[in-house]
């Protein structure tokens, strides 16, 4: 299985390349990608340097153009596709059918990967994108169980890529407007979820409060560790109980599932975290490279090394791990 690592800037591209990624993915500095955060992503010059650096070391480069072109300003997305073709990017990650059509017609040599933002959770959908636009790989939303992934992979020629580690969307990616409902900014329309500009931290006698566009997402007592107020990870009141009503703040970590994923023919493991720093990219890439090699060598006797878990644990959101939907304790 191949390793696909994130990069939010040129140093991270170098770090991922050096630490053993097979692919590095990043976005351009605008709303054409789903990590449209201030100070993040690469401009055209940095992207060119990134391609040069990675290609010199036989690492492939992906450009995420994975938001939905809006009714006005759609040219920006087309320009991003043209840029990818000009820079010799190995594949673009797309969610929008109109944009896939543009890429397939204008740049027939450009390889297309189906973004997780396209919400393709079944093989009929994935095969649809293959027939219409020739996608060669699909990244699956983090809502399927391991068994469902196996079933899906058996019914398509499209390569399957799954998330292995990092932040966790509990909703089907591409079908979540919680952030839009509260802030007016969402992944589909603006490339950002629960945007930093809407966040307010307020110390109060009852504890530290995190708010998003005025909405109280969570309140922490002194001994609780505060987390970023992503809407799906807040504590709310439902029928008389206050709890993490949607999901606890925890990171996805699927190291222990590697043999199963390999057996099912999963082509690649994706690491989330383009918004994270160089140290994160280096550490996570290194651990996963080691794990993937161990699994490829001897899947029967593969075990998760303690020092891998230690290293990853320090990098996790809330320092907790979960297998997410892959294993369904709640099922």
């Amino acid at each position, binding site marked *: 299985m191949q390793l696909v690592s994130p990069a939010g800037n040129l140093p991270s591209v170098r770090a991922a390349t050096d630490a053993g990624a097979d692919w590095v993915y990043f976005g351009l500095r605008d709303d054409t990608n789903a990590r449209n955060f201030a100070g993040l992503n690469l401009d055209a010059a940095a992207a060119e340097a990134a391609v040069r650096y990675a290609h010199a070391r036989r690492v492939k480069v992906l450009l995420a153009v994975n938001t939905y072109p809006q*009714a006005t300003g759609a040219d920006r997305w087309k320009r991003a596709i043209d840029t990818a073709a000009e820079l010799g990017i190995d594949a673009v990650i797309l969610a929008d059918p109109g944009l896939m059509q543009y890429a397939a017609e204008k740049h027939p040599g450009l390889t297309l990967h189906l973004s997780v933002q396209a919400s393709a959770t079944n093989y009929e959908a994935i095969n*649809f994108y293959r027939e219409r636009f020739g996608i060669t790989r699909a990244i699956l939303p983090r809502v399927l169980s391991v068994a469902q992934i196996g079933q899906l992979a058996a019914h398509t020629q499209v390569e399957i890529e799954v998330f292995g580690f990092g932040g966790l969307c509990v909703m089907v990616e591409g079908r979540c407007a919680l952030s839009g409902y509260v802030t007016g900014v*969402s992944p*589909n329309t603006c490339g950002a979820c629960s945007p930093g500009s809407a966040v307010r931290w307020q110390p109060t006698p009852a504890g530290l409060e995190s708010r998003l566009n005025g909405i109280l997402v969570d309140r922490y007592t002194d001994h609780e560790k505060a987390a970023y107020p992503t809407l799906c990870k807040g504590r709310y009141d439902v029928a008389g109980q206050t709890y993490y009503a949607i999901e606890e703040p925890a990171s996805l970590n699927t190291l222990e599932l590697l043999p199963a994923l390999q057996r099912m023919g999963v082509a690649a493991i994706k690491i989330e975290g383009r918004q994270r720093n160089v140290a994160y990219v280096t550490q996570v890439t290194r651990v996963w490279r080691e794990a993937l090699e161990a699994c490829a060598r001897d899947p029967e006797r593969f075990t998760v090394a303690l020092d891998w878990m230690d290293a990853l644990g320090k990098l996790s959101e809330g320092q907790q791990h979960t297998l997410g939907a892959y294993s369904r304790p709640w099922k």
Partner: protein
Amino acid sequence: MKLALGPVLYYWPRETVLGFYHSVALAPIDIVYLGETVCSKRHELRFGDWMEVAETLAGSGKEVVLSTQTLIESESDLRTLRRIVDNGRYTVEANDMGAVRLLAGRTAFVAGASLNLYNIESIRFVATLGASRWIPPVEMSSAQLTNLVPQLPAGLETELVVYGRLPLAHSARCFTARRFNLQKDACEFRCMDFPDGLPVNTREDNPLFTFNGVQTQSARVCNLVHALPEIKKVGIDVLRINPLRAHTLPVAELFRRAIERPAELGPIAHELDALTGGPACNGFWHGAAGMQALSPAGSA
């Protein structure tokens, strides 16, 4: 403008559903969307039951559309999908690209809101595959629709949700079961206890979301009645109402009156506000946060 009733998003007992559609048959509604779009475990009505409801409604002059499930994960979900697609009689609303694959080139279909059609190229693409109507994503604003509608292929209708709670997200996880510490596979169908969904409030008692099993909806009801003149000007063809347990048909009647007698919009809107009870929202239409209630549509 035509008036449509979206599928019932909640899990109601069989008799409630049948009684509801019995009344719908007599209501001033042109198009009725039917079927379970949220959770494959819900089985109060089976495919055959839905087809019977469809026949009754078609018999009373309604255009019937069968809606497909939004999140399709398993082989069994796909079997259900194929049955709907192959129904042989009614138009299908595709709520996943898997459904579009099965419908493409075979028969006219409705392109649902969860297909994420945000731009004219994508809309034209589904039109070439046979879409005869499309529903914009929940977040789309009037400014975007004003830009898109004039560019639409001839004959492609636009349908807009003008009333009801807004489906905001879908997950594999059931949040209703989670609240009651039940596993999804043994959920005891607790969502049936909440015919209008399970309210999710902030710790300041501010209504935020509504849990409907694997679907998360807005807490507030979206009400665009105040924007009707603008909606008409934009060129929307069909107005959709998302059913709630109470007042859905009176709401439909008010929208019907508002369409037919635009001069009476003020008092009609006032009546609708009264039926809605709590504050409504219209932020997405105005290009703002969806939960907001902005004038003139807010509380004019």
